């Protein structure tokens, strides 16, 4: 039976019906808004946590790579330096060459590169062996997806 709103007086049954529909639609709208807010915030929080950590890890690993190279080169400098002759020598007694140092640093660099997703590049022109100071100098570039760092390593024999 259809209620005719015009024939009935004010405050009739039809107004609660309209109000009821409004309430329902309003409730559904609030419900969807709530769910939408929750989904968006979840996504934002999750991405924030992941994105921030990657770059800071790379910076730390660049520093570790510098230690690894410096340690290796220091030991090479100590073992190859001959105090009596005052020069850096190879195992057979001849002078240490730039190529020897490059090969050595590249071997360490390869190991570093394969243990993390990074590339270690040695510029062979920057290798300098100074028998006088004494010191061995090399410039190395460490690169990952986020960070690229160029470092000059100076290695001196122990005791100098």
């Amino acid at each position, binding site marked *: 039976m259809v209620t005719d709103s015009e024939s009935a007086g004010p405050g009739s049954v039809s107004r609660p019906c309209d109000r009821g529909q409004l309430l329902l639609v309003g409730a*559904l709208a609030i419900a969807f808004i709530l769910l939408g*807010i929750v989904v968006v915030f979840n996504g934002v929080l999750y991405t924030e946590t992941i994105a921030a*950590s990657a770059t800071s890890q790379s910076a730390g690993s660049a520093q570790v790579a510098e*230690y690894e190279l410096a340690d290796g080169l220091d030991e090479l400098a100590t073992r*190859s330096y001959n105090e009596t002759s005052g020069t850096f020598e*190879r195992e057979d007694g001849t002078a240490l060459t730039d190529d020897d140092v490059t090969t050595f640093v590249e*071997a360490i660099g*390869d190991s570093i590169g394969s243990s*993390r997703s990074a590339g270690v590049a040695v510029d062979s022109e920057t290798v300098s062996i100074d028998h006088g100071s004494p010191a061995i100098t090399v410039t190395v570039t460490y690169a990952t997806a986020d960070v690229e760092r160029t470092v000059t390593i100076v290695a001196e024999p122990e005791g100098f």
Partner: protein
Amino acid sequence: MVVLIAALLALQSVVITPTTGGAVDRTVQDQLQQEASDALVVAESHGGLTATVMGWSGNATDNVSAFEENASLSHELGPILEHRFSEQGHSYNLEAVYVEENGTVTVDRVLTQGRPSSGAVTASYTITLFDDHEHIPEHTDPTLEHAYAVVEVRLTVW
């Protein structure tokens, strides 16, 4: 009623973050990774990693590490791993990785405490062994001047 149900659903789903599925929290994993890396750096600054690798004598089985007599995890590395990881309830594996001239990769298990879980982290440190070190394992790289081999020491913590 609908609002109440929607509010209930919303509150329930806020609880579903990446960590509640049983996955490890990202920041905790990063922290563990940094600690593992620092442990290796600090140990090597006192020569601990070189001493450990030189004392190793055979593949390790679960909870038994194989070292030569009178050698063990060097006294720089052992306590660090013990205090930082074992006492906090973490387990760790230690491996030494060698790459030889012809490209073969050998992984020597120095210390094993089981299989890593899916949330494990690893840290590596590269050391060089020289000809005048004692008790060297047999993986040499003859192209290197003065040096015997380049070793990657890998620590897995979970």
